Structures are given as structure tokens and as C-alpha cells.
């Protein structure tokens, strides 16, 4: 079995530190603006919580029959910290064993979690925007309110901008490091 290079070894604590930011900073943010909300409204998604102007957004969305957002409704807020936590622990193990194959597997698991998370986020956004209360006071024919996965979208009177927040960028950085180092280690053998 091939041993990891020095660069490969060094990358592990960096990835772990990048992922640790998830507990200190929000990973995603959705900003909204409408004429009567000049300061805008903002919602921050954390690894285990959703913060910001959630009560106000819930209050507004009831007009069009969208579900209210409650932290308790998200199983993700339980699973995500556990899976990322385990993933970080695995990193420590790989540092000790120093095996290339384990590093490749680690990267594979990361990509799997990332893909799953984005898929899950999209599914939630789709349901949030499409599953509308049939008794909602305001019904716009053909209109659904799915927020953008990433980027800008206009939804009725609101402009919506969805993008990674600090920990999200760190998460993306750790993904790039993992893929980059995997490629580097692969070429080196």
C-alpha cells in the first residue's frame, strides 16, 4: 500500500479545520428584498439550525400558503452534525494510518455527502415552494415559490438571493482541497 505524501498529510488538518467552521458560522444564506422591506430580510442556515428573520418570513408566507419553517422539522439538523463529525474523526484516523487508498475513500465519502446534501436542499426547496395550502388567501395561477438553489430569482414582490455563507465557503474549499490532493496523489504514484 502506498503511503500518503507530505502534502497529502498536511491537507487533512486543513480540511478538518475548514469543516469545523460549520459549528461557528452559517453555511448558507438566503437574502430577500421587497419595496416595503428596505433593510431586507435574511435567513441563515447553520449545520444544526436556521436563524435570522424566520418568524417574519413565516408570517409573510402564510398569505400564499407556504409552510412555516421550524427548526424541529429538519432531521438534517441532527444527521448533518453527526455525519460531518464522523467524517472529521475519520480524517484523524487517516492521518495516523497515512494510506493513500483511505484518502481516496475519504474524498469519495465527502463528495457523496456533498451531493446528498445539495440534493436534499433542492428537494426541501422544491417542496417548500410547491406544497401550498389549497386554502391560502392569495393564489396566483401557475405560480410556485421555490427559492433558487444558488443565485438570484424574483418571486412576486420579493427578490431572492441564495448563496453560501462563511462556513459554506470553507466547506467548498475543503472539497476543492480533497479533490486536488486526490488528483495529486494519484499522479504521483
Amino acid at each position, binding site marked *: 500500500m502506498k503511503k500518503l505524501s507530505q502534502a497529502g498529510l498536511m491537507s487533512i488538518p486543513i480540511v478538518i479545520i475548514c469543516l469545523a467552521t460549520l459549528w461557528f458560522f452559517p453555511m448558507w444564506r438566503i437574502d430577500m428584498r421587497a419595496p416595503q422591506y428596505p433593510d431586507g430580510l435574511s435567513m441563515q442556515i447553520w449545520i444544526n439550525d436556521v436563524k435570522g428573520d424566520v*418568524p*417574519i418570513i413565516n*408570517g409573510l408566507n402564510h*398569505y400564499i400558503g407556504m409552510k412555516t419553517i421550524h427548526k424541529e422539522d429538519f432531521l438534517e439538523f441532527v444527521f448533518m452534525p453527526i455525519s460531518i463529525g464522523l467524517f472529521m474523526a475519520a480524517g484523524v484516523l487517516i492521518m495516523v494510518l497515512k494510506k493513500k487508498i483511505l484518502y481516496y475513500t475519504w474524498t469519495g465519502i465527502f463528495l457523496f455527502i456533498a451531493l446528498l446534501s445539495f440534493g436534499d436542499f433542492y428537494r426541501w426547496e422544491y417542496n417548500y415552494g410547491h406544497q401550498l395550502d389549497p386554502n391560502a*388567501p*392569495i393564489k396566483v395561477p401557475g405560480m410556485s415559490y421555490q427559492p433558487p438553489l444558488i443565485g438570484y430569482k424574483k418571486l412576486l414582490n420579493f427578490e431572492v438571493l441564495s448563496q453560501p455563507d462563511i462556513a459554506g465557503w470553507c466547506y467548498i474549499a475543503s472539497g476543492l482541497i480533497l479533490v486536488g490532493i486526490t488528483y495529486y496523489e494519484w499522479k504521483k504514484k
Partner: protein
Amino acid sequence: MLGLAVATTAAMQSCKMKTAATAVQGDAASKTYVAPGKYDEIYNFVSGGFNGQVSVYGLPSGRLLKVIPVFAVNPENGYGYSEETKAMLNTTNGLIPWDDQHHLDLSQTNGEQDGRWLFANANNTPRVARIDLTTFKTMEILQIPNSAGNHSSPFITENTEYVVAGTRFSVPLGSEDVPISSFKDNFHSTASFISVDKTSGKMDLAFQIVLPGMNLDLSHAGKGPSHDWFFFSSYNTEQAYTLLEVNASQKDKDYIVAVNWKKAEEYAKAGKGKKVPATYAHNTYDEHKQTATSEIKNEVLLLDPKDCPDMIYMIPCPKSPHGCDIDPSGEFIVGSGKLAALIPVFSFNKLTKAIDGKQFEGDFKGIPIIKYEAALHGEVQKPGLGPLHTEFDGKGNAYTSMFLSSEVVKWSLKDLQVLDRVPTYYSVGHLMIPGGDTKKPGGKYLVAYNKITKDRFLPTGPELAQSAQLYDISGDKMQLILDFPTFGEPHYAQACQASLIKDKQVKFYDINKNGHDYVAMGEKKANVVRKGNRVDIYMTAIRSHLVPDNIEGVFVGDEVYFHVTNLEQDWDIPHGFAIKNNPNAELLIMPGETVTLKFSPDKQGIYPFYCTDFCSALHQEMSGYLRVSPKGANVPLKFGTGETVTSVAAK
């Protein structure tokens, strides 16, 4: 021949009277233009006079931002009508729904504005109010006993240690029935000193100084070297009690009453005063309970100058002085004799020397009168007609309003020379320079608050708004830059930089801190409770429904209390509440607040109620019904929201 014609025309041109329009020059518009979405530089708090309220304007635009209800009921938001605020207007004579609000003072620390509170006086039924500048709400009203015409009020000392209240109308102390003609023997003026708690702002009537019968007009505290002193202008030292117009204008000089309040404080502490019975109301608004309470107090401490030597001196001042204004350094005391053709300026330094050297010219009812010349710094000669009030720009200049000649006159404190004069439209009363009565005036703007409006704005029948003019005083010459209408009748005003209070404005109340006795913490807590003929409705309001919105089992003769809690937690989402045929006002309920409206139905019927403040796209739907049945009818108490005949049957 042609030359003669031209010359004649030119001469006729020059004979034309000056009009108001000619007074405005070039760049006035750009100096007052505040672009859409931009803020004014300055908050201008303007007394409401006979409307009893305080108006808030932005400067330099002159835009009206708010009317703060203080001494008059305000059906628009329920002030004085809601169960929570009725106590604010309580007096020893019950709820008085109106007063005459003349003067304002912003709280100060070390002689500079600190942006915490605004004090306001009530002239008719003597009272002093304190307004909180984070909520723009009246928090406290203190009634003043042994007083009438609370005019020289609510001026404050340099660190807001005291707010004063001086009587315009002398009255007998206590409740003895005496003939009016016994004025000289039985009538007194009083100068009340109200202590202000450093942290809470709570007011307390510390002591009252009993003075001879005369009219105290305006006042201002000393600052810097004169910190320990308070100065009150007086008129009617003739002690007239009828046809004052003539009988109170006889003497050549009245007085400025100089009170050493530090000494008075010491005398009060040393037990030199006399505690006497006196009833007065002290009303306070509890922010936690969101409810005002009124306490009737029973005693006051009187200080008699006879028992307190070196506490009070009289400075002769020509002809019924109105303004009594202290320059930013604290050295000069400017008296404005409204019937005088000059402005006397007294020196504090000379005043103390005169007291030390006992340069007196007799006494007024036992109070030493200082020799006029001994205290005089100098006189401003021929300033104009009818000097009323003086403000300062912090650059060594004073500005005096001239009621009769309708102008503002700028003069130098150093050599007492007139430097400039500009007309006002018309008959200016008070002037205001932001911070103009503090140690640090802002020397950029001056506002004249006029008593006569005539043709300044589009006419609106015989009853007109008042007019104010804004002047740019940053240069050598004063420049008129704006006219704006004001409401009620402004007297004195205050202004401060917007930055001092803008960022500490409360946007909404935290519902979790709502300690109201009748709060409904969420729709699940909405309820209707009957106790005898009292019905308490714990109602919630949130866009766009009221809970409960169907109420039955209420009878003619019941006393119904709607306790409406606004559950919103967002900026600028108030809800309103009103019910048909209620001989009462409406409520405006700010987010997180609970307010109560009483309704005593005396006729059977269905009474719709609804939200009166357009709150959302479904505001029109935010309504409900109260069924009032005949007394003794067999209708069970029932209430809810969202329950229909079909939904109940489905269960």
C-alpha cells in the same frame, strides 16, 4: 423730458414696499432640500401651545414627523382613552383632557444635550411631563400644587438635577377662601424645583420657594460659573389683579429673580423648610406593565426666603421682561423687556460682586434688590421693538426676537452692537437655535416661531396654521431659507442633531418582555372571562386576523374590556382596533404591545369590530363580530376564530 420720465419711474420703483418674496435669495432651495430617502440633519421638538401636544419636525426640510400626545387626549392612538393611559392625564380634579403646552427642554449632562428625555410644561393646570426619546412616549406627568399658570417651566439645570416650574398667576397657598382684592396679602408666586433621578428620570417635587405675589414669566439655569443659580423673569411686580394690560405695565422696571438653587437645596436638607399639606397627582407609565398609574401625593416642602438668607436676589430689569436667557459661557444674563426699547445684559461676575459688596437699593417684600448698574454688563441700544427671547450661536453672538417690529436681531455679546436684522412673517415669539440654550449651540440654523400667519400659505378659512421661518445663520448675514406651517401654537422649541437619538429608536416591543396584566401570549391564550358584569376579552392581533373574532354571550349593561395584544415582531406593523357605536376612541397597538379599549354596550345588537391600521393585503378581512343580547337572555358565553356551522358539525 424722457430723462425725467425715467427718473420718475425709477423713483416710484424704489418707493414700492418690500414684499416677503424679495427676502429669499438664490440658493435657499438647495439648503433645505432633503432628497427622497434621505434624512434630515436635526430633530426639532416644537411645543404645541393650545393643542397640548409636542410636534416633531425634521430640519432643514421643515417636514412634520410626529405629534407626541402629552397633555391632550389623542383619539388617533387612544392616548387618554385606553385603560392603560387614562391615568397619565389624571389630576386632583380627575382626568383633564387638554392643556396649554408652552415650553420644552432637552435633558443635559454638563450643559450639553444628552438625548435622553424631553421635558414639557402644562400652563393651564400646572404640570410637567417627561418624554422618553427612545419611544417618543410620555412616561411621566407631575402635577404642581400651589401654582397657577405654570409658565416658567420646564427649564432644567446643567446636569438635569432639577426641572423648574414657576407660576405665571399668583394664587393663595392652600385652600382658604379669600377676596381677590387681598392679592397683596394672600397671593403668592412659587418657584418649584423638581428633582430628576439620574438613571430613571423619575421626577419628584423636591421643594417650592414661596415668593411675593407677581407673575413669573420665563427662566433659565446658569451654567459654568453660574451653575448654582436659576434666573426667572418677572412682571406685574405692581401686584395688579385686574386690567393687568395697564395696571401691570406701570413700573419702569420689574425684576429678574436670581435663585441660588444650591443654597435652596442645602436649606431644604437642613430642615429650614416647612412641610405643608398639598395634594397633587404623580402619574407614571410602567414600560414593563405597559400601564400608567396615578398616585395622589399629600405633602410639599415650602422654603420661605425669610428663613433662608442669601438664597434669592432681585435684579431690576426694564419693562415686563419675557426672556431670561443665559449665554453659553454662563457669564451673561440677557433680559428681554417686552415693552422696552433696549436689551439689558447682566454680568454674573458683577452680580456676585454686587452681592458680596451689598450694593442693594432696598428690598421687594424682604428680598434684597441689587442696584441695576451694579449687575449690568451693558445695554443693547435700539435693537428693535418688543424684544422677547434670546438664543446664542456659540460664536459670541446673540439673536433676539422682536415681536412688535417682527424681526430677528443679531448682536454681539462682546460690544453689544447690532450686527444684522431680518424680518419674520409675522410677529415672532420664541426663537430656537439647536442647542441655543446650552453650552454648545449649533451655529448653523435658527428658527423663528411666529404668532401671526396671514398670507404665508394657501388660505384655509379664518383659522390658519402658525408659520415658522428657518434661517441660515452660518454666515455674517442671516438668510431666510424656508417657511413651514406649524400646528397648535408653538412657543419655545428645542432641537438636537439627529445622530444623538436616531439610532436608539425602539422599532417594536419584545413580546417576551410584555408584562401587561391582560396579555395574551399567543393565539392559544386568547380568552373571554366573565366576572359579574365585567367581561375581559384577551384578544390577539396578527396579520390578518383577530382571535377571537366571534364573541357571543355578552349582554346589555356589561362592561366589556378588549385587551388587544399585537403579536407581530416586526418594524412598523401596528394594528388598530375599533368597535361600532363605541362612545370611545380607537386603539393603535404597536408590535409586542397590549392595549385595552372599554365598551359598555347599552343597546342589543351585532357590533362589528376591525383593525383600523392598514396592515396587510388582507387588512380588510381583519374583523369580527360581537353579539350583544338583551339583559337576562339565555345566550351562553361563546368565542373563537375559524369555527363555522359546518366545521363544528364535521367534528
